């Protein structure tokens, strides 16, 4: 656990402190997002944890030990650090870059080599990259190396300062997903600075919204933040589409799904049409045993339900976010999204009114 | 200490302050030769550099000229010009100094013009400036700091090499140094060194001052 106690940073010549008396707790094994407008002291706060910036006053406890009273170099070697512009050493190969902290700690060569191999796999980096120099890599690859380098000595704590700020949106999304997946396995304590509220909501177990001068406006899990912004500043910072953002945090699996009217492949066509009439539907979902095949209109069905059917436009699973499901529903001809599980088995369906209900809750 | 005494003795002799080999005459010769050579250099190198720079094809040429130019010692150029012209005195000295001034002037003009932000040039064209206007109103003023740096480099080279011109029987302040060496006359030698250093440093400050004045103009960025 990282505890900040009344941490203040005043830069010489500045009118007001960059961070004024900030107190917060960062629980072990969670991702805490520091988010706020420029000048809110989020980067300063981060840099005080590994003492790249010296706090003017206050204490920063890392598992109960005050880092401000320790050798900064030792502190830093035990904390992973990833920054937006990566800061790879241009004169060292990728492998040497990743091995930086293990080398500093004096690991022996074979252990370092093994660790580099392991990390390469972990961050999904092509092993061929290892002998190259940083300028030969793309932005996304470099950031992967940055993460691998920070994880090299397996530090319990990771500080990340807008690590995905300089890559394009597609790569950013992928790196965010990878970080979440990585965290599922590693359970690091991660402090992550961003100015992007969507990134904060997407990645954080908790989000700390900071105002200018390091004022902590709200600190809670993202659902809570979206459901109940503490004040006008937070509300303003969250921006529009708050309802949609909340939907993006939840998955289809969390909802009670409606039952789907189905027709088995090869069953009686007349019976299927009768069920459609009874339900007032002009289409029916076709399944083969419990596997989803597609959908058919009455006119498509003869004596028997055929094994060829129209495909649903969107693929919705129990892991799909409600936000995406909503998109599928409103763009689908049928006005619903049919949901399958990981093995493509039909589990139910979701309709627009159900999602609307979630929005108002 | 002996040196200082001899310097004082030489300087306090009034006969050294008049006539064709007096200190004022030789100082004026030195300054005049430097000015003349630099003037010629500017007239030749700057327009050429502007034209090549405007066409943005000159960077490679500039790099090569700098490398070649730097490898040939100024003293060597003087000697080569001397054997090529079969003359002593003013002519080989003047030609040598002009050649020396050409390299930094030309190269810095080309680079100065070429390094003007292409977006600015593009915007100027987009607003309807003719090529001539682009060159004179945008590229030249923006490239001026670098061109003036080239002028300063040229000045330092030319003043220094003008002292060597005494070796091909021209006047100037270098005469005192060379004759001082030859006649083992420390007073004369130090007089030459002192005045030449003075001319160089004062001149350099003047160019620097002009440079600063030019770069703090309304378009300073």
């Amino acid at each position, binding site marked *: 656990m990282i505890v900040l106690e009344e941490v203040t940073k005043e830069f010489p010549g500045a009118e007001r402190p960059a961070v004024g008396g900030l107190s917060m707790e960062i629980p072990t094994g969670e991702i805490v997002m520091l988010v706020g407008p420029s000048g809110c002291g989020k980067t300063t706060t981060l840099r005080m944890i*590994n003492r*790249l910036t010296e706090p003017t006053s206050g204490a920063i406890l890392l598992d109960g030990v005050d880092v401000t009273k320790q050798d900064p*170099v*030792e502190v*830093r*070697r035990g*904390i992973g*650090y990833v*920054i937006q*512009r*990566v*800061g*790879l*050493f*241009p*004169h*060292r190969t990728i492998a040497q870059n990743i091995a930086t*902290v293990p080398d*500093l700690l004096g690991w022996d060569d074979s252990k370092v080599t093994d660790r580099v191999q392991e990390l390469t796999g972990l961050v999904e980096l092509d092993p061929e990259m290892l002998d190259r*120099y940083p*300028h*030969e890599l793309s932005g996304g690859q470099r950031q992967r190396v940055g993460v691998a380098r*920070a994880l090299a000595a397996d530090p319990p704590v990771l500080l990340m300062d807008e690590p995905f700020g300089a890559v394009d949106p597609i790569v950013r999304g992928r790196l965010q997903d990878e970080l979440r997946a990585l965290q599922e396995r590693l359970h690091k304590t991660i402090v992550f600075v961003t100015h992007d509220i969507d990134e904060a909501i997407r990645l954080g177990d908790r989000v700390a919204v900071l105002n200018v001068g390091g004022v902590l406006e709200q600190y809670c899990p993202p659902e809570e933040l979206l459901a109940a912004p503490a004040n006008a500043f937070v509300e303003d910072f969250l921006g529009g589409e708050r309802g949609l953002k909340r939907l993006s945090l939840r998955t289809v699996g969390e909802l009670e799904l409606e039952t789907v009217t189905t027709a088995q492949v090869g069953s009686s066509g007349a019976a299927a049409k009768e069920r459609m009439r009874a339900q007032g539907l002009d289409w029916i979902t076709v399944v083969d045993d419990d596997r989803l095949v597609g959908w058919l209109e009455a006119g498509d069905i003869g004596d028997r339900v055929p094994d060829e059917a129209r495909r649903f436009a969107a693929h919705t699973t129990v892991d799909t976010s409600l936000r995406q499901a909503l998109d599928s529903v409103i763009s689908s001809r049928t006005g619903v999204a049919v949901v399958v599980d990981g093995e493509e088995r039909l589990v139910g369906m979701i309709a627009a009114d159900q999602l609307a209900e979630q929005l108002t809750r | 200490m*002996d*040196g200082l005494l001899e310097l004082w003795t030489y300087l306090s002799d009034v006969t050294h302050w008049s006539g064709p080999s007096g200190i004022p005459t030789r100082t004026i010769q030195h300054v005049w030769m430097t000015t003349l050579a630099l003037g010629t250099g500017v007239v030749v190198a700057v327009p050429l550099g502007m034209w090549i720079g405007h066409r943005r094809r000159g960077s490679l040429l500039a790099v090569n000229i700098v490398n070649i130019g*730097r*490898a*040939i*010692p*100024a*003293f*060597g150029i003087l*000697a*080569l010009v*001397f*054997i090529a012209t*079969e*003359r*002593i*005195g003013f002519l080989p000295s003047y030609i040598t100094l002009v050649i020396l001034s050409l390299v930094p002037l030309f190269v810095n003009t080309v680079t100065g013009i070429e390094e003007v932000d292409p977006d600015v040039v593009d915007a100027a064209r987009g607003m309807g400036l003719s090529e001539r206007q682009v060159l004179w109103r945008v590229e030249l003023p923006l490239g001026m700091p670098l061109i003036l740096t080239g002028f300063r480099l040229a000045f330092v080279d030319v003043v*220094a090499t003008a*002292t*060597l011109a005494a*070796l091909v*029987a021209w006047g100037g302040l270098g005469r005192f*140094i*060379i004759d*001082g*060496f030859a006649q083992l006359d*420390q007073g004369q*030698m*130090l007089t*030459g*060194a*002192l005045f*030449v*250093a003075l001319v*160089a*440093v004062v001149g*350099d400050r003047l160019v620097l001052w002009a440079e600063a004045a030019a770069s703090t103009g309304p378009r300073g960025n």
Partner: protein
Amino acid sequence: MRTRVFAAPDDLVNWEWVGRNLDTIAERTWQHVYLTVIAVAVGFVVAFALSLWILSNPRVGKPVTQLSAIAYTIPSLAIFALLVPVTGLSTLTAEIGLVMYTLLVLVRNTVAGLEGVPDEVLDAGAGMGYEDRRLLWRVRLPLAMPVIIAGIRIATVSTVGLVTITAVIGQGGLGWFILRGLNTVANRSTFVLVGVVLSVLLAVVFDLGIQRFGRYFTPWARKVA
């Protein structure tokens, strides 16, 4: 004034004289090499120390560079003349002057190189627990190498040129031939050409040699630019 003292063009170089005087040529070339190498080596050590001083104490940066800029402005012949009363017509006089001229470019490039290391690289280094000293020697210095090497190349090539002028104070390496060419009538063009051509060659060889050396030590920079 006009002097008609020249041989016909086909006698521009008296090869027979060259053949007879290979010893002198080798000796003078060697003198040129060591005057140059000592000047650049001493100049680099001084410049490096000054650069570290400037880096740790930015206030001294301006006065140091201004002083070396003024020193650079003073014509070399004047510097040598000013030193002769103190250190005589000696190698020391030549070296002091030559070292002075290397300082401006060496200090400028070394400081620029060390300061030009991207902030994020230093930040990342510090963040991973590099001490200041290690950051200097393991990160800043290697990354500054291309710029420092560029400075050494410029300083070396101009030193090769300046060495010729030390002929006037009885040193000079290959400059001795050039001066001899100006002062004598017989074999005049041979003297000048031997001096000039060999010193240009020397400059080129030094330049390429240092460039090679630099590339060997900065393999990571090979594919940039």
